[in-house]
């Protein structure tokens, strides 16, 4: 650009400065950006998620560690789900990761391990390793090496229902087949429930739970395993098309009401719909049981919250005991942390994770710890009904499929979520969905 006068030149320069300043102060930084790097000496840092059942356990455990280790303090920050997922990747990529990295294992952990961003923990956690349920511990391994250890509870996806509304609509029990589910939807609608099934459509990932379960019930866990292992034409499996057809069948039946696109899971709106009696059913992870306990303790205490397995689909080959969800959340140790910080973090993991207080806090907040020795405590707890149910659900499951958006690497996971939301909006046919997913590399 040619500046016709000094005034013009100054104006451009000034606006440039404004742009530059805005660029500095802008950007999504939910918390102190220097948080990760500010731990000194043998101290270490940790980032985790707000809400859910485990925040309390993490906080209590960190406090306990800090009291016992005044020279190696842990500094923790908690983030909302979506914000965290974006922030952590940038932090890990740029070498500013916290010492303890919270994750869902799966595709992300593979990326971290492949690029040497996380420490190999094999053999370093002698007292913790044998206590963890084997199938869950395996999720934290990449090529046989342990890169992440579980830090909370098994989180199968469960069908919750409001017993009051079921009674009002004349539904005797939780639906066990697809036909019964459609029937329940119709009865709830007839009873004046505008949203028979609560669904956090704006968050999109809760929509994925429907696809995961339906695909599993129709075609078994192998359908998605083929996708996750990168087999050619894996998306061409007929189970995916049929699952999408079932989803659109539900949408057409008005199962999710006409306002699910505005419901956000991060704020617990889907959970609120169920306990405020605006929705009859909710397909969500076991982690929202903690939200029910905090937000609507009376509702849970009065035994109005029902829970059940996902219904079967006629002609499907999947075992009805199969579950989907997250085997747990995981801690990894960042390779970019100082050796002292790494040593403290590993010591923390080995000595404090799932100790007495930790396990008690998890159980009290409605979560099943993934340790072999938790069963007795679960049975003795106030929430034995749900916790016992979730515990046996996990124990008896022939297959526990990790959530697809976590199992896949970032790019296909995003494509999956966007395309799936188009299916729910009926902007894509099941065939177009499969075609779009097959085209993703």
């Amino acid at each position, binding site marked *: 650009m040619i500046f016709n006068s000094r005034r013009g030149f100054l104006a451009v320069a000034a606006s440039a*400065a404004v742009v530059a300043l805005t660029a500095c102060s802008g950007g999504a930084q939910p918390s102190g950006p220097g948080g990760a790097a500010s731990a000194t000496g043998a101290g270490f840092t940790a980032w985790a998620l707000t809400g859910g059942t485990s925040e309390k356990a993490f906080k209590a455990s960190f406090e306990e560690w800090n009291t016992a280790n005044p020279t190696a303090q842990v500094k923790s920050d908690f983030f909302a789900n979506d914000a965290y997922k974006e922030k952590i990747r940038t932090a890990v990529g740029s070498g500013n990761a916290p010492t303890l990295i919270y994750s869902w294992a799966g595709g992300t952990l593979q990326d971290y391990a492949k690029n040497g961003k996380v420490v190999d923990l094999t053999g370093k956690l002698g007292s913790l390793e044998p206590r963890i349920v084997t199938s869950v511990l395996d999720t934290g391994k990449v090529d046989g090496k342990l890169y992440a250890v579980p830090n909370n509870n098994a989180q199968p996806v469960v069908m919750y229902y409001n017993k009051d509304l079921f009674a009002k609509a004349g539904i005797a029990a939780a639906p066990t087949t697809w036909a019964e589910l459609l029937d329940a939807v119709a009865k709830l609608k007839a009873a004046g429930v505008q949203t028979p099934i609560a669904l956090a459509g704006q968050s999109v990932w809760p929509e994925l739970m429907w696809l995961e379960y339906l695909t599993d019930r129709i075609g078994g866990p192998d359908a998605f395993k083929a996708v996750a292992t990168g087999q050619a034409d894996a998306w061409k499996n007929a189970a995916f098309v049929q699952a999408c057809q079932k989803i659109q069948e539900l949408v057409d039946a008005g199962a999710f009401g006409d*306002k699910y696109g505005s419901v956000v899971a991060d704020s617990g709106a889907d959970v609120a719909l169920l306990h405020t009696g605006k929705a009859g059913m909710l397909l969500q992870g076991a982690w929202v049981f903690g939200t029910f306990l905090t937000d609507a303790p009376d509702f849970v205490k009065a035994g109005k919250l029902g829970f059940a397995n996902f219904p079967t689909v006629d002609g499907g080959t999947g075992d009805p005991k199969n579950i989907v969800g997250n085997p747990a959340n995981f801690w990894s140790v960042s390779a970019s942390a100082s050796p002292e910080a790494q040593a403290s973090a590993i010591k923390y993991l080995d000595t404090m994770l799932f100790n007495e207080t930790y396990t008690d806090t998890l159980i009290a907040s409605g979560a099943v710890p993934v340790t072999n020795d938790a069963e007795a405590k679960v049975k003795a707890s106030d929430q034995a009904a749900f916790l016992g149910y979730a515990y046996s659900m996990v124990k008896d499951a022939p297959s526990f499929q990790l959530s697809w958006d976590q199992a896949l690497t970032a790019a296909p996971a995003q494509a999956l979520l966007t395309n799936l939301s188009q299916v729910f*909006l009926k902007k894509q046919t099941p065939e177009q969905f499969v075609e779009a997913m097959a085209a993703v590399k």
Partner: protein
Amino acid sequence: MSTRRGAGAQAGLRTGPSIWLAAPAMTFFAVFALVPLVGVVALSFMNWDGLDAPTFAGADNWARILTDPVTLDAMKLSLVLTVATWVTQFPTSLLLGVFMAGSQRYREWFSILYFLPLLFSSAAVGIAFKALLDPNFGLGSALGLDFLNKDWLGDPNLSMPTLVFVIAWSFVPFHSLLYQGAARQLPASVFEAAMIDGAGRVNTFLHITVPMLRSTIVTSSTLMIVGSLTYFDLIFVMTAGGPGNATRILPLDMYLRGFRAYDMGGASVVGVILVVVGVGVSYALNRASGNTKMESTLEGA
């Protein structure tokens, strides 16, 4: 119209302040705008997931992004948003601004009210509106007004108009302020002459106020158009590009590619397109309006 201002600027070239006064600003600009810009152009020719070392990809990213239906759709949506923003905001803020320029007491009170949205950050506005518009727990259900309980942000046909409304709510005050200031500077003599000639309120507005506000109209329209091309925060907070891809305009496409799918190369391509279009549009607007001639529209000012 006088051309004295233009002459003044010419004289300023010889006697004005030293060019070094611009050095701090230019340094900022170079470090925080030019250097990253060069980086983005370079990245647009590379594959990078944010973790590995970037690898050279040639023109692959460009070919891929320029044929990607999602990005092409994003371009269309950006255009729709820009036009809709201008069509809603320009008349509203012009009328409000000229109205507020009047010296009556009650207008000053109105001005203060109109000014309020300017005090809130975009993210706060987004979160507040998201809560108010929530069809299950929002304003509609609180007041028992069922017609407000629409799926405002979740219905692909409603989400874009809703965003246009909220964006207008946040930015009309700023543009009104521009027009208010400009309208207050208009010389009273012209209006008195018009009154003597028997021009009515509407004619005075259309034939005197609007033409004399030309420079302000150009400035404000440039800000609206370039602003909505690159608008991000409010939309990200309210819909994050959803439902589906219904509000995924170019800046969101860039962000979601870069920081959700970790396709930094593809995101950089979108970024470069945004910069080129943004600079091009503002330059074209400036040229088309003859603003570079630095003519004054204010007689005697």
